């Protein structure tokens, strides 16, 4: 590398010298002196060329390594970034089953909870799906709103990240978070990790259990049992990755919210007109009455 560089340099220096000679023939004075000094500096450069060139070589290797590391890091990082940063259409859309719950249509009848319990024979005291009541105000200015709950089938599921046996995973084909009941050892780590309290340890079988969007029904083209049983059609199930599905249109057209956004889980269960009143509001000194009734064994939300 050093050799190539000196060769490149030499024609230039020769030309310089010629020019200088011409100049010196035209005018007397300090010019030759300058030429001498220039020659000196050039030769000096030649001597010095090797160490900087080697240094440059090393630097380029290090730079290359750093770029490789950066490339690997960004490609790894890319796995975790979910946001579609550019505003154009997303070409990476994948099938992702999700649910929109239109709380305006919910009457708090618990039909979904009952349908779910009978569909899966969920043990007494546990729920895969449940409806919370939120009561506010002092008579006569009072309200009660409903919040149907289920597993959010998160795009960043904390339960999957902590499972030591890979028993719980997010299905590649449709984005449903499921528990492989043959692998689960019942360590309850996922129950701790779920910010939505959507998981429980099945007291009969001893493994972790949760809503799985009725995979057995969905596989046959049916809707989940809570959706088909809902009297007010408050629950809408479908593929969020499909732009023409009803659920995608609903998400696009409505002001939707998700639960516990700050947990960074990117839930796939969206709510329309949900009342996000919570225990934090209940603590505020100016608030008269806020009651959250979970309608399940866990009296408090967690």
């Amino acid at each position, binding site marked *: 590398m050093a050799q190539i560089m000196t060769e490149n340099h030499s024609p230039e220096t020769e030309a310089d010298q010629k020019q200088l000679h011409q100049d010196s023939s035209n005018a007397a004075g300090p010019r030759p002196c300058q030429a001498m000094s220039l020659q000196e500096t050039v030769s000096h450069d030649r001597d010095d060329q090797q160490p900087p060139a080697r240094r440059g070589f090393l630097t380029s290797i290090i730079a290359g390594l750093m770029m490789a590391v950066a490339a690997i890091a960004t490609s790894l990082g890319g796995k975790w970034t979910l946001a579609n940063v550019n505003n154009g259409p997303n070409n990476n859309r994948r099938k992702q089953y999700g649910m929109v719950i239109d709380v305006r249509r919910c009457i708090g009848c618990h039909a979904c909870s009952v349908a779910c319990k009978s569909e899966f024979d969920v043990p007494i005291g546990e729920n895969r799906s449940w409806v919370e009541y939120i009561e506010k105000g002092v008579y006569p200015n009072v309200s009660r709103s409903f919040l149907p709950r289920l597993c959010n089938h998160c795009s960043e599921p904390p339960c999957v990240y902590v499972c030591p046996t890979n028993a719980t995973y997010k299905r590649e084909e449709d984005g449903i978070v499921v528990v492989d009941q043959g692998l689960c050892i*019942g360590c309850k780590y996922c129950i*701790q990790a779920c910010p939505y309290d959507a998981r429980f340890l099945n007291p009969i079988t001893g493994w972790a259990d949760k809503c799985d969007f009725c995979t057995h029904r969905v596989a046959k083209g049916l809707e989940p049992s809570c959706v088909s049983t809902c009297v007010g059609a408050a629950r809408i199930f479908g593929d969020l990755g499909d732009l023409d599905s009803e659920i995608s249109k609903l998400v696009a057209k409505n002001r939707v919210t998700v639960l516990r956004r700050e947990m960074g889980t990117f839930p796939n269960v969206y709510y329309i007109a949900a009342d996000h009143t919570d225990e934090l509001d209940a603590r505020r000194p100016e608030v008269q009455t806020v009651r959250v009734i979970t309608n399940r*064994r866990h009296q408090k939300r967690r």
Partner: protein
Amino acid sequence: MEHELTWGLPVILYLFLAGLGAGAVTVSASILLRSGDYHGGSFFKLARYGALIGPIPVILGTCFIILELGRWDRALNLFKVINLSPMSIGSWLLVLFIFCSLIYAFVFLPSFLPRFAWLSRRLIPIMHVLSWVNVPLGIGVAVYTGILLGAMPSRPLWNSPILALLFLVSALSTGIAIIILAQTLFRRKKDPTVKAERRIIARREATLLRPGRRNYEIGYLLTGSDMLLIGSELIVIFLFVMFAHLTVGNLKYAMAIILPGGEMAAMFWVWVVLVGLLIPVLLEMFYIIPKVVYQREFRIHEGSEILISVAVLVGGFMLRYIIVVAGQITGPLGV
């Protein structure tokens, strides 16, 4: 206080016992490495206590945690895969540690019998290698118990990077405490070296010599390092509590449970901070300061040694208990 705990007493006991055993083995191996005493000196005997005691609580705790599983018959499923879950990495680490610490303990056994002195000598290289292996493994097991809890944003109280450090410092401190306790309880009362020491002291400082007082270098080493560890534990607890209190949101509300006025405040401040940290550290300072400041000979009463070690052990257990319970009865509040 009708809370339902997903992880109950077996997990709390496991976190305490695994930390205790890992701490004891780590301390034992580092004593061996630091002193280079493989030939039956006082440091060797100290290291032997740690090595022989260490694996017992770890194995006991592991049994507890296996019985806590919903399907304990499937526990071996943990070893079908390895992934980035703290529990997966931790269980591999735990198995490796149990294996290495058991061999490490067995290597010390021939040193009890004079007949097997030749075997002891042969085993020195193995002992040396195993102590190098056991220090990082023991630290790994102690740290992982904290990472296990800290890995979840859904448990704000646990989701702190300093929790793993707290558990590590507490594990080392309880490890030293169990060694102090063991060598106080099992020390031969008619040890000729102790007698000789006593005679020498008696001539110079007869007034300070009371029954039960002992003067020995290893006691200074243990008590001094325990004091430093408890000091750092106090700092870590202070940072843990203060930074959680200074943040806003879920973490602040979760921490409120062990701050004054909280549901578990009295338990935390009395059992962990007072009994587990302040009483032992003050007692240790009482014996350490004369040596450090006035270059007096170090001597400590047996009763004090037992008191210090029992208090540290109780404090270590209560720390695990309160952190595990408080973490589970608090959670994110917003919806």
